[in-house]
């Protein structure tokens, strides 16, 4: 039977045998993480989708787009920002905007608009509400503008697999919506206590180098 070891076990065994020496005094776990990073899996870039028409610059900093008492289904979105080489990008900035739960953009102010920075691990998260259906658009959507030094700016949109336009089957009924790509139609899960149910979506973003 062939012995299977994960990275950490293999490194520990090699270090114990003197095959690998950590000159920097690193623990096997750190070496394993470094190894994982060097073996990062390449990823296709997130498909582009249109920016407009109601992008507004200078959105306030923060990730709390939903305020207490806001009507609509609470929504939490999180994800990690990667390069197409599969490495996390810790320096990315995000601008995120959407309509209210009844499908209206705030043009006078900055409701449901936010600017935020990814964490050192490339992670981001926002709290909002499920956007309403916007006139002349078939799909509920959230706009993203993602920028990072050394990478092409990404304009894209997040769509919801639960959108009624897909009739419960976004694979079969994708064409009934107006999303630019099936890949940015994301599954939605309901999480939380019965009294505080909210929708959760994971939306990873992949940027192309310049």
């Amino acid at each position, binding site marked *: 039977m062939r012995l299977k070891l994960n990275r950490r076990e293999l490194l520990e065994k090699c270090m114990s045998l003197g095959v690998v020496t950590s000159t920097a005094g690193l623990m096997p776990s750190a070496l394993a993480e470094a190894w994982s990073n060097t073996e990062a899996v390449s990823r296709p870039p997130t498909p*582009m989708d*249109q*920016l*407009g*028409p*109601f*992008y*507004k*610059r*200078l959105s306030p900093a923060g990730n709390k787009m939903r305020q207490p008492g806001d009507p609509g289904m609470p929504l939490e979105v999180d994800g990690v920002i990667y390069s197409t080489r599969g490495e996390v990008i810790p320096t990315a900035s995000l601008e995120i905007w959407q309509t*209210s739960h009844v499908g*209206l*953009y*705030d*043009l*006078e*102010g900055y*409701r449901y608009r936010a600017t935020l920075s990814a964490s050192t691990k490339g992670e981001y998260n926002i709290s909002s509400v499920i956007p309403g259906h*916007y*006139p*002349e658009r078939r799909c509920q959507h959230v706009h993203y*503008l993602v*920028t990072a030094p050394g990478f092409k*700016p990404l*304009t894209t949109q997040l769509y919801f697999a639960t959108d009624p336009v897909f009739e419960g089957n976004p694979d079969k009924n994708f064409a009934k919506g107006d999303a630019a790509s099936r890949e940015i139609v994301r599954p939605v899960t309901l999480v939380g206590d019965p009294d505080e149910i909210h929708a959760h979506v994971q939306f990873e973003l992949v940027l192309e180098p310049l």
Partner: protein
Amino acid sequence: MKAVLASCLLASLCAAPSHSQELRKLITLPTPSEVRSVAVCGQSGLAAALGRDGSITVFRLASAEAIIKRPAETGLRILACSPDGKLLATSKGDETVVVADLSGAALRKFAIAGQQVSDLSFSPDSSTLAVRLYEKPTQLWDVAHGTLIASLQTSFSGSGAVDFSPDGSRLATADFDTVIRIYDRSGNLKAKYAGLLLEPFAVSFMPDGKQLVVGGADSKLSFLDASDGHLLRTIPLGSDPVFAAWTLPGGNSLVSMQVDANSLKNFTFLVWNLATAKSTKMPVDFTRIVGSGIPRKDQAVIFLRDSNSSVTEWALPD
């Protein structure tokens, strides 16, 4: 959420639309199919109609005579006609632009690698083609040599509108990154205005080339100095975003088209007197507008689709 600016009621430049005024009917052009768009060929006396089936018909506007009938070409959806009346530029909204003579003989084919074409505009001397791209910066192409002159600049995304100055020496772009940029004809950035917060959708040089008018999601008309891009004045228009604006030949008025931001269905078509900042609402069914231009000295027109077999040219008041 979208409230009319209270200050608008007090501002001397904020004017409610006054009485409706009829357009003046000029001529009806019989078309072989439902018209998608009409491109005015400068003041050459010609206009080209693109059908939804991809056919192209070139008309003499004085007589409505169809002088060229090109057969349907599946997928064709963007058309521009050179001001000298000699060339047609077309695209299927893909990565290719074809420049042909009026009969359809292809002269040049521009390959726009990896980028989809959204609109085409000739320079006044017909030598340069501005190619607006989907979510990418506009490109300038040399028509005679079929070469790329320049890819213009944006921080991200593309342009909502482009306009050449009347003398053709400059080009202005209304970019979705909220910046208005002014270039020379080689694509060198000469000036910009970065004072907008929301996306601009329209930009137009005044007839003397000294000012630009900009409209967009901020529901204003902004007037810029075309030499350095600085803001000269604004006209607040209430709460409806401006998605099209162009100046009329005399320099005393302009047209704006606005849409209700909430419904995106109630359109308003206004002609503005710039001296008084008063507007006249035109009773135009927006869904029938298929083109506009200045085909004769001192006369701006729009084209309205009548049916599946004709389109009519209407004169705008100036």
